[in-house]
């Protein structure tokens, strides 16, 4: 059996989707260039498949991975800030509960969230 790797992206109901890698059992008779005519798939959607080069595939994912990386960096930064804020809230809540002081709304929400209330 002869296998071949191809790159493709699908247009579903007119909307172009991110490209993907496909490994096929190559019978030598199917043309994997250009685009297929829209066909109705098993879900009833109109689907056409465009066969693309590895270069086009890589270009898309290099760009996309940079966005994903950026989102991850921002999330990590924000997550640290949340953790810092949580530590701060924890300290003030404990202090206020021990001394019988009234909690702020933010502190009360923190307690409720922590206790899964």
């Amino acid at each position, binding site marked *: 059996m002869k296998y071949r790797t191809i790159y493709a992206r699908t247009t579903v109901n007119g909307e172009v989707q991110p490209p993907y890698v496909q490994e096929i059992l190559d*019978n030598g008779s199917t043309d994997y260039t250009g685009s297929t005519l829209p066909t109705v798939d098993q879900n009833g959607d109109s689907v056409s498949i465009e066969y693309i080069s590895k270069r086009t595939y890589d270009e898309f994912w290099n760009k996309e991975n940079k*966005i994903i990386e950026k989102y991850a960096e921002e999330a990590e930064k924000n997550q640290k800030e949340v953790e810092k804020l949580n530590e701060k809230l924890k300290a003030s809540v404990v202090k206020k509960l021990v001394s019988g002081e009234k909690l702020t709304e933010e502190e009360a929400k923190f307690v409720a969230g922590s206790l899964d209330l």
Partner: protein
Amino acid sequence: MARCGCGGTCNCTVQGSGAFVISGTGDQNDPYVGSINTNPASPLPISSTPSGLTVAGVQVQSSNCITLTGNGSTASPLAAAPRLDPTGLLSCGVNGLKVELPASTSYPNAGRLINVSGTYQISVKYPLVAYTTVTASAAAVNLASATTQNLSTMSATLTNPSSTEIMYVLPILQSHSFEWTMVNVNAWYLQTAGGTNMIAAFTSTGAGEYFGMGSINFYTGSVISVAAGASTTLSVTQQLRVRTTSGSGSNAASFGAARMILMGWIV
């Protein structure tokens, strides 16, 4: 001629036995004559000839499958031979009838539908005639948006290479693996387009929670029947649905690859 030495009338007693019969009175004008009686009802006709008794040869009649020859004599003994059509597949060996299979390459679809191994061994194969694996990465999703966003769409078309038989396609769909960090009260869902299949759903309730899941087979089955020479296309879109924007900016999600495997068999 047998004579008893008597005069006009002979007093000798002459008696036949079985098929040998004596006729006549022994008189000159009516001598004793010995002859052989033959039974007209006998299955094999016997006749008395000047050279002796003669038994007629056996009649033979061939059938569609056996050819009979000979008349049962030493010179031409009875012989039966099988009639083979076509010759080559079945033959008469020293131990009896035997099947002689031609080389496997002479069978139509040899090695694909019919497998011939060794002598007299034929088995039917259920060959895998079409196969594909689609691997998709997940696109970037905005976790600060309480919407449903596409992670990936995988499509594949399998064509039945046979011009005579039906191909059955078994799809196996595997989800994206993921790691999610959800802040505050939130709910995320990994699903197929339109929520047809709910793959995973997680809800956070505390200040921050972490969830992780490996790639799972979320759909296997529903064999698709593909007519001879026809094609089938299957496409699957996996989505992330974010229910609220709670924790915006601090939420994080990373996804592994998803897969779709299509296997086509002729059975």
